[in-house]
């Protein structure tokens, strides 16, 4: 078991001050990361947690030096970072192994790039392969291995260069539940027993449980724009148990922070495209998913724990949050402190027939500025049709690269509500009569 290092011993490895990452310029500017401040000290295991699109991976890439911040400073051991961070490596979500190299060659490549001699390369690679428990698989190709084993190669390769700061980019999310659990355990053992020279670990994840089980500190991020909303220290001792009440309490707390709280209506709706004011994106959730959530909530008696219902519906946080957001936006549900509650309207929707549901959705989504704008544009047109291109261009000015997804969701909702639809042959949107 690791003894927590005292503050005096711990040095600051990494400091981020007012880091901003934005794409595009002027009106079309999209802010991926806004004003992030954080520190990572030696001996720490820090998790960056948040829904997809909150800029957590972007932040990780900035820290590793793969990407450059638009403004703000990134200091490593007090020195500003320029180019690739020589003290950090990344373990990638999709492993990023070279499929044409064997396990051993994949590990050796990192050493080859540093000019390590052939013999030493070999010895060090073999030792690391042994450490991660892949003894006997040196000459196998990645495609012959299971996902868990591939990620072990990813870890061995990252450790080969003996990084001070090990960056993990959702390293377990492409694995099945069992392999992920096993690999987590093995990583924690290496880390806690100090058998690797790594000084600090920074992990990106959208899995709350994973963060609570592994991290000393969880940095919770939110999107639009991507920013840090909370820091949750986890002081529980290792090894942590998922079922442990203390663990569950923290998980619940983090859930409450991530899911936020239903905003007052005017603020939530935002302004229409082309109009001044704050724009809100439509959550990327299909109406069918929303209907499923409403029915489930209704079954559960109209109120449920988000963490619990995510498990019941087998939805990852990334898939659950947009649906919850859609429910809030349409006024079907309220979220507070990690709990979701059905509103009377939501209840009516859940009990309604398919036709009645369409009518409810039509009435509700017409309040959304983007949908309303599309609807009115079509109404003003002589033949009730307008080229998709027109909407896309307008949306691009507000949402940049996300315009396509926004329009797709708007069409999905509009189609469900039988307000408007899309003609694939002519690439036009048209009003349903």
């Amino acid at each position, binding site marked *: 078991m690791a003894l927590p290092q005292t503050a005096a011993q711990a040095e600051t490895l990494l400091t981020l001050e007012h880091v901003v990452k934005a794409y595009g310029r002027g009106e079309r500017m999209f802010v991926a990361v806004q004003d992030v401040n954080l520190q990572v000290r030696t001996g720490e295991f820090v998790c960056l947690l948040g829904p997809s699109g909150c800029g957590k991976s972007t932040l990780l890439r900035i820290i590793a030096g793969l990407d450059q911040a638009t403004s703000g400073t990134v200091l490593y051991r007090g020195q500003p970072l320029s180019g690739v961070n020589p003290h950090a490596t990344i373990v990638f979500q999709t492993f990023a192994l070279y499929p044409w190299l064997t396990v051993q060659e994949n590990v050796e490549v990192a050493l080859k*790039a540093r000019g390590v001699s052939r013999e030493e390369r070999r010895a060090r690679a073999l030792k690391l392969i042994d450490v991660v428990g892949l003894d006997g698989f040196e000459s196998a190709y990645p495609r012959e291995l299971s996902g868990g084993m591939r990620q072990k190669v990813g870890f061995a390769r990252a450790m080969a260069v003996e990084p001070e700061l090990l960056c993990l980019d959702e390293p377990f999310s492409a694995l099945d539940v069992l392999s992920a659990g096993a690999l987590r355990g093995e990583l924690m053992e290496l880390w806690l027993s100090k058998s690797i020279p790594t000084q600090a670990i920074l992990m990106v994840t959208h899995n709350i449980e994973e963060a609570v089980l592994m991290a000393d500190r969880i940095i919770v991020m939110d999107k639009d724009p991507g920013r840090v909303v909370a820091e949750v220290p986890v002081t529980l001792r290792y090894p942590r148990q998922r079922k442990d009440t203390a663990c569950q309490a923290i998980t619940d707390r983090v859930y409450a922070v991530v899911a936020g709280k239903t905003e007052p209506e005017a603020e939530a709706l935002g302004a229409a495209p082309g109009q001044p004011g704050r724009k809100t994106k439509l959550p990327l959730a299909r109406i069918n998913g929303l209907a499923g959530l409403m029915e489930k909530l209704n079954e559960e008696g109209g109120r449920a724990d988000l963490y619990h219902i995510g498990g019941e519906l087998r939805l990852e946080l990334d898939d659950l949050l947009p649906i919850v957001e859609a429910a809030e936006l349409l006024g079907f549900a309220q979220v507070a402190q990690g709990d979701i509650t059905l509103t009377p309207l939501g209840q009516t929707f859940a009990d309604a027939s398919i036709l009645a549901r369409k009518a409810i959705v039509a009435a509700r989504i017409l309040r959304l500025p983007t949908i309303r704008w599309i609807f009115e544009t079509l109404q003003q047109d002589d033949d009730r049709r307008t080229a998709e291109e027109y909407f896309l261009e307008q949306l691009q000015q507000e949402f940049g690269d996300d315009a396509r997804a926004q329009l797709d969701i708007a069409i999905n909702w509009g189609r469900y509500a039988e307000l408007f639809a899309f003609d694939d042959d002519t690439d036009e949107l048209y009003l349903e009569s």
Partner: protein
Amino acid sequence: MSSRGIARKRVFRFSPPLLRTPPLAWGDALVLVGIAALLYAGARLALRAPAVISGPEISLAPGALPWYALLSTARMAAAYALSLLFSLAYGYAAARNSAARRVLIPLLDVLQSVPILAFLPVVLLSLSAVLPQGLAAELSAIVLIVTSQVWNMTFSFYQSMTTLPEELRQAATIFRLDPWLRFTTLELPFSAVGLIWNSMMSWAGGWFFLMAAEIFSVGSRDFRLPGLGAYLQVAANRGDLRAVLFGVGTLVLTIVLLDQLCWRPILAWADRFRLDMVAGEEPPRSWFMDLLSRSFIVERLEARVWGPFAERFGERMRGRRGFRSDPSYSGGAEGTISPRLAALLAAGGLLVLYGGYRALGLLLTLPAPAWGAIGLGVIATFLRVTASLAIALLWTIPVGVAIGTNRKLATILQPVVQVIASIPATALFPVFVLALLHLPGGLNLAAVLMMLMGTQWYLLFNVIAGASTIPQDLRYTTDMLRLSRWDHWRTLILPALFPYIVTGAITASGGAWNASIVAERVDFGGQSHETIGVGSLIAEATGRGNYALLLAGTLALIVTVVGINRAFWRRLYRLAEERYRMD
């Protein structure tokens, strides 16, 4: 197990991919002026070409055949080596430097649709003006093959370079691979499969041009090269059927041997460079590869000679070792042109403009009737190309669908078709002439037949590939609908085949236009025969040394083909990509 992001499937069609550029751009006009300038320079040089050029003596003895086969293969190998080097350099530059990309990619796009064979006469004449005859012919054959092979390979490499999976690229950066290590561990392996497929395509196309170059002779100028092509021509000319058979047999044997001993093993070996993380259903196999990999000597060679050599070579190529971080690693490629390069480009541009101006001057000396003849010739050749395409479509669609949807039939017929298809149409042309010349309109028939031979295989292979991708469940569903035969074709088969037919037809029509150069005029049995067409005009101009006509004819052919490509094929291609894709 999901490995999303990495497992991107790459589909290979038997045709170079087309770029998404607007139908006709300023860049095209510029490239055409450049081509005109180049042709003008060639024609100027050609003024000093000797009036009488004698070809080599060709022996029809079967014993000479291995030697001729070796000569032909050596020419192909030399041209291919050049093509490969060029492709890698060009593709690398275009992918890595955004300034270079803006020039190189549109250029590539026009060049790959230009009928390369149109350059043969100019290249031959200009080179024989400055070089000894044998060397000039050899060199122009190689130049011709390179210009025919290089574009699709370059394009494939460029495309691979620009579609490297994000995370593999980032891994290379984070582990600080230097440019050489990055090239050998990431870029080249990732491009390997596409490059090899395109090399095979290029090699097959190369035979077509080699045979044309080995056979080419007009009037008193005999540019032939000792090789299988010339052998076949002489044999047909003398009506020696036995020698024709021997010649064709040797050609087929050479091509099959190269396929079995060279391309199949390479393909089987390159299977490791696939990106998808699951084992393939049917990995390419090669008996020769299996044989080699079991060999003790090969293993030793690899461990003792190749391994250390590769290591040492790599060290040298990497130059300074150590912790160098290259700024171009992180994200976008650099896009700067140094002042020196800019000056060079400007000078080149001026030279091109001057050449274009002089070319225009030469063209203006051409009398109006000659222009009329060129117009008529283009139309006649166009009709021939259209006829050959129509015939090819008529038979390849039903046969291709039959083969593509019937596994049993496919296993029997596929190898046979592949062997027949491997015979370059240009090699068979003398044989067609021998068979058809005595008929009324015989040369016309022979020309269409040769175009057909050149076009139909691309179509057939594409139709087979298309038919075999029609999903089984879709076929069952359509069967259950009890549609009439015609409706069945109209609702399922033809739409599913459409993209494949279009890609096949683009390559096929390119081949047909190329064929016109050698097919419309022929010296046979001591007499010269010709038919109306732009190809015969070009050949005639070459023989008589009418350089204005040569330039005008060649340009007219190029403009026509590029125009048809842009105005017609590209539209169809885009339609196919957008509407009829099956994925």
